[in-house]
């Protein structure tokens, strides 16, 4: 053995570690840079602005103003009221509905589940506009019907009010609670309920002592999600609260950017949203991840369904009445408004018209531009976001590099940044040199990419987890290399997950309003912004046409995703 060939073990190990570190460091730092651009910079500027005055000197004056100025304090109190009401109302309606669908012999249970998913994908601002058409004090269809029937001069409903706002937001957050609770019910092994039965507990007793306690964490999680939605939505309050003359935090933040802009105050008002969201999401993950709730698996059949007997039809009617609120009524109103001379027009041939269609697609200059912008952004965000999520989920699922836990955290972190907060942050960060992206589609791409990354990542991470590493190892041991295994085994197994992630991002972008409203310019308007603008000018017919087009795109993509992934499971979308 010559001296040259002797390599000490420690040197060899050092070389190996260095070699291993080099590649992973590169990957990690690239991912870190990207995530800093997406999250760190906007959030950093948000803090900077919130803690400085116009001249850049550090100050707490912004927060003092937030607490003392009635014009700022009122919106916060209103938002709190709104959040608590929605957090109670949404799960209170959704939980019994979920139980009826999962545990009783209610007719058409599958259809009802599918319809709840449909109200899930309705953009909340579109729902708010539809309810304007239905229940605006003067022109609302329902109010006109009411006046016609009773001769009363007063409207039955006034959607431009805090109760109206609570109602509309609850309509479109209840599906979140419904999905959480019905999934929790589906996961309770039938044995747990049967065991109570054989020990002498009647059906209702079993429901109260076994079923309900087991889904309490899911109900609470649903309440938290509803709270968050009510707090961070921009579209619904902007459409319903502003005409009524009151603000929520999100509309106030938006107003603070109107002339004369007060970015410092806006940043200070956005920070509480960020903090509360982070805290509530942590509480939620604790609720859903409690370890005590794991149960030994055994073969356990379908749960025995509770026979509603004489209540079967009344219960179905009640469910249909509830579904009418987020679905049947608003959708009918939108369709009718799209082809009527005015929304409340009688349903007769003379009152029907194609003028809105003609206006939107032929005359209105912004339509084409907005469609083009929306499609370009949706396609590019979906593609880039899916690729990024695929890359990160591969690294984390297979623990290919050290530090993959950090990557996982960074990829899920944007979930805690409300759209409007991100919009403010991105505006502050990129409206200045050297990265003056404001006014281009790039800043919208950054915003959408950040907002949608967590959903895509979670989808792909669970897909990766479903592919057991032994499936890959079986291929390796039979002689296929790493790449061949990826192509022949892993990729085909992940295909449906990838398609689903792509579709979810696409839909999420099409319906996004909160961040877009902070970042658009006249050249970079997207569909949701155009609809919001049209609402300001009161052109409900044109909105109905655009909204219907948006819904058709959404349902086509949802249908495609469901067809690819088998069942309509785990649709994760953020409210616009």
């Amino acid at each position, binding site marked *: 053995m010559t001296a040259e060939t002797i390599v000490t073990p420690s040197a060899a190990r050092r070389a190996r570690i260095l070699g291993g570190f080099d590649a992973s460091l590169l990957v990690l730092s690239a991912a870190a840079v990207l995530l800093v651009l997406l999250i760190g910079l906007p959030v950093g500027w948000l803090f900077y602005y919130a803690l400085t005055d116009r001249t850049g000197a550090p100050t707490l004056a912004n927060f003092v103003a937030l607490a003392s100025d009635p014009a700022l304090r009122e919106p916060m109190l209103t938002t709190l009221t709104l959040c608590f009401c929605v957090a109670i109302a949404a799960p209170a309606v959704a939980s019994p509905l979920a139980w009826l669908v999962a545990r009783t012999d209610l007719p058409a249970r599958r259809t009802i589940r599918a319809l709840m998913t449909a109200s899930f994908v309705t953009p909340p601002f579109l729902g708010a506009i539809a309810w304007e058409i239905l229940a605006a004090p003067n022109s609302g269809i329902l109010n006109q019907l009411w006046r016609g029937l009773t001769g009363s001069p007063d409207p039955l409903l006034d959607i431009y009010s805090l109760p109206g706002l609570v109602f509309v937001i609850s309509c479109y957050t209840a599906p979140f609670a419904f999905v959480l609770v019905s999934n929790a019910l589906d996961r309770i*092994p039938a*044995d*747990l309920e*049967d*065991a*109570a*039965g*054989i*020990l*002498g*507990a*009647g*059906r209702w*007793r079993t429901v109260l*002592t*076994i079923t309900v*306690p*087991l889904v309490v964490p899911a109900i609470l999680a649903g309440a938290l999600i509803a709270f968050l939605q009510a707090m961070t939505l921009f579209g619904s309050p902007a459409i319903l609260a502003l005409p009524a003359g009151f603000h929520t935090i999100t509309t106030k933040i938006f107003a603070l950017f109107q002339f004369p802009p007060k970015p410092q105050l806006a940043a200070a008002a956005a920070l509480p949203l960020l903090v509360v969201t982070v805290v509530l999401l942590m509480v939620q993950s604790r609720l859903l991840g409690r*370890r*005590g*709730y*794991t*149960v*030994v*698996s*055994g*073969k*356990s059949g379908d749960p*025995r369904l509770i026979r509603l007997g004489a209540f079967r039809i009344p219960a179905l009617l009640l469910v249909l009445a509830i579904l009418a609120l987020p679905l049947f009524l608003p959708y009918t109103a939108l369709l009718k408004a799209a082809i009527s001379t005015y929304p409340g027009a009688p349903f007769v041939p003379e009152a029907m018209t194609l003028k809105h269609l003609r206006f939107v697609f032929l005359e209105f200059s912004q339509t084409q531009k907005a469609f083009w912008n929306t499609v370009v952004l949706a396609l590019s965000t979906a593609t880039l976001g899916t690729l990024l999520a695929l890359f990160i989920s591969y690294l984390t699922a297979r623990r290919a590099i050290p530090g993959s836990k950090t990557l996982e955290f960074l990829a899920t972190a944007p979930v805690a940044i409300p759209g409007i907060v991100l919009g403010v942050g991105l505006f502050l960060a990129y409206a200045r040199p050297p990265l003056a992206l404001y006014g281009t589609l790039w800043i919208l791409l950054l915003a959408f990419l950040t907002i949608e990354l967590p959903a895509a990542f979670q989808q792909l991470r669970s897909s990766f987890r479903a592919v057991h590493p032994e499936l890959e190892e079986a291929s390796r041991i039979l002689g296929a290399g790493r790449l061949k295994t990826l192509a022949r085994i892993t990729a085909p197994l992940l295909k449906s997950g990838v398609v689903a992630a792509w579709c979810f991002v696409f839909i999420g972008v099409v319906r996004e309003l909160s961040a877009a409203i902070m970042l658009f310019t006249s050249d970079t308007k997207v569909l949701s912004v155009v609809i919001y603008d049209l609402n300001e000018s009161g052109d409900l017919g044109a909105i109905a046409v655009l909204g219907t087009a948006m819904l058709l795109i959404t349902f086509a993509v949802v249908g495609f995703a469901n067809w690819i992934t088998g069942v309509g499971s785990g649709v994760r979308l953020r409210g616009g």
Partner: protein
Amino acid sequence: MAHLDLRGLSKHYDGNAVVDRIDLAVPAGNLVCLLGPSGCGKTTTLRLIAGFVEPTGGEIHVDGKVLSSPGFATPPEQRGMSMIFQSYALWPHMTVADNVAYGLTLRRLPKADISRRVGEMLAAVKLGALADRYPGELSGGQQQRAALARALVIEPNILLLDEPLSNLDAALREEMRFEIRRLHDAFRYTTVYVTHDQAEAMTTADLIVVMNHGRIEQAGTAEEIYSRPRSAFVAGFLGGANILKGRAVDAIRLDVGAAVLRCAESAFVAGSEASLSIRFHEVRVHANGGGGGGNRLEARVVRQTFLGSLRDLALELADGTVIRASAPPDLAIPADTRVWVDLPTERCRPLPS
């Protein structure tokens, strides 16, 4: 304690009989095992008894009262039974003590009685120290005991067990087999026990009921079923057995191709297709043909495997049929050797039909 009676019990799903006209009487205080492969209908039978499933035919009587018949089933909660589930079904949101107390609370017992009986029962299953734990904090064996305690504490008329040991590891399973028998001897509840494991059935049961394709193949004590199987299925399912098929020559002789074999008891109908069974360890193997009588055949050793306490031999008969024999471990016969096998007439059990 109650007397359980199944009369012509059937359950059809979409026209398929999962349980097919079962007649079974379980005397009060007896432990009956329903034994069979998966899909034989044993669990459905148990769920029929519990009242989770309504029968499509036949009736279930307890102490002379009809509990189930087509279109009618007393709900499970009114049957006064208990059940232990394969998954244990311990409620994860209640402590062990709360789980055990649940059935007593439903019976509106005074608080003091409840805590006394829960304490006694937990002591009986050796869980006294873990009363305040949650099920998620227990080992598999402890969860099993907690499930037993919860089921026994209400002093049920009838105790039902659905594959209660299948989630335990082998050593624990053997321990719990004896534990269940011990508790049964102590409390003597009428018990129906479902399993696919013959050792479990033989350890615990007063009466074993072998099921296949939704029907009862044979019912009897462990010894009866083992030594006098009435069908090829029962002979094969309980302990290994050679099944030799052929045509009956007369009431006691069967032509199996390689030879005409004689049974000790007469059961065949001359000229009909039939078979006989003989267990692996009842086949005698001799190196030479001297002596003996009755069913003596020439054979060739195809394979021999040393298994410690015995030697497993595969033997090819003149017509190519291969039978297996468990020989003493010191009988080392190389493969391809010609040997003589003895199939003692009193061990050849006729299986008519």
